[in-house]
């Protein structure tokens, strides 16, 4: 740990702005650290001005008690390739301009979103029961049905060109303007940025029809599209 921090300090000396305003997710899978060690690590990072917004590669059970002061465990990060670290001789400019901290997607550490990476997901097949689609980066479009017992979780809106029989959870990362669209409403649960409605509470007149759902205050409003 001391060696690793030493290397980190050397990097910070070479380019003090490298971590400035970058939200960092710490991957603990190779560290073997547990609760107290993790806390010590985050304290050390904080002292160096590194803002940790989440962690991955660790089980809840390894953290021990008193989890409230630790950053959340995030999942679903994809490796985005390495980031160019400025060499010893080079000065401040990091590989890419620092990204403004986004409320949104957890990123593998530390990497700004590479140019050209899609922020919407298109599925051209039905989603089968038991399958779970997680796409925090943006919208999800399904060309097919979403079966009962399946779920779509998106950071943006959800568009189902078919029957929506499972769960649709939109606006995951705090976007209250996200909407859910489907060609045939048979959903078990709809949620937008934390507010949700279950099948029981949906207007029976909307069942089986093309419907859009959006967030109105603390509730989900729904209207037919036909």
């Amino acid at each position, binding site marked *: 740990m001391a060696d690793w921090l030493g290397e980190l300090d050397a990097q910070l000396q070479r380019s003090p702005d490298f971590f400035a305003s970058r939200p960092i997710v710490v991957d603990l899978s190779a560290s073997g650290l547990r609760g107290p060690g993790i806390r010590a690590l985050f304290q050390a990072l904080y002292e160096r001005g590194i803002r940790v917004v989440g962690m991955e590669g660790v089980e809840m059970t390894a953290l021990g008690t008193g989890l409230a002061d630790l950053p959340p465990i995030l999942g679903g990060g994809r490796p985005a390739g390495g980031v160019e670290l400025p060499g010893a001789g080079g000065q401040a400019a990091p590989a890419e301009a620092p990204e403004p901290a986004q409320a949104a997607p957890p990123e593998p550490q530390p990497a700004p979103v590479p140019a050209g990476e899609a922020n919407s997901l298109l599925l051209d097949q*039905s989603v*089968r*029961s*038991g*399958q779970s689609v997680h796409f925090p980066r943006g919208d999800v479009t399904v060309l097919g*049905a979403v*079966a*009962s*017992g399946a779920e779509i979780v998106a950071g943006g809106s959800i568009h189902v060109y078919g029957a929506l*029989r499972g769960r649709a959870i939109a606006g995951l990362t705090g976007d209250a303007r996200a909407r859910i669209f489907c060609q045939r409403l048979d959903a078990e649960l709809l949620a937008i940025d934390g507010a949700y409605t279950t099948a029981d509470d949906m207007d029976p007149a909307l069942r089986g029809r093309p419907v859009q759902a959006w967030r109105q205050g603390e509730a989900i409003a729904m209207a037919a599209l036909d």
Partner: protein
Amino acid sequence: MARVIVVTSGKGGVGKTTSTAALGAALAQAGQNVVVVDFDVGLRNLDLVMGAERRVVFDLINVVHGDAKLPQALIRDKRVETLHLLPASQTRDKDALRPEGVARVIGELRDRFDWVICDSPAGIERGATLAMYHADAAVVVTNPEVSSVRDSDRIIGLLDAKTQRAERGETIEKHLLLTRYDPVRAARGEMLKTEDVLEILSIPLLGIIPDSQEVLRASNLGIPVTLANASSSPARAYFEAAKRLKGETLPVTVPVERNASFIGRLFGRRAVA
């Protein structure tokens, strides 16, 4: 080239073992070399339905672990000589299955037979995933009722994810076999209609097997229904399904019970209790 078929469903009790035996016997009667393999380790039923329970010496687990050779475990059917059974163990459980051992056994079976039909256990855990892993095609057995349909949908998702073909990026053929179909109850809305099931599952229909007392009668006698009473409606439906498995195109109909007697023809429809 041998074809490995898995008969699976997710839900228990929908007719996988019955269908494995019936389809296996139908294909064997048509002259094909068929082996039916019971993957339900610990709760074996295929040997009962095939009438071979008193001749089981070695089983699939013995062969997987190398305690016995494949020819020692295979049981030839007494009625149709091109039909063989590889039974499961009753004393072990599914944890005794080893992926490398299963791969070796399936490989040996492919060399000896035209059709290897694997009777999957219910569920989505190790037994079911090992049964489906080596399959070229799947027969998804479904009853026309909501829990069975949802479980079948789950199994279809697993077929597209946890099979060797899926891992290689190839497609695995999936066929829907609708069992325990009662046209009267479907018309009354008490059971799902065929179109409803097809709309949810979206896989091609292999056949519709009508609900019939013949099935229970045959399984209690230990004879596959296609051998026990070849002219009964479920047997005729299984024969057609077997033809479709071989690649023939036949229009799907629901066979009805044929009553030979004159009175039966007058009052042709089965009385509803």
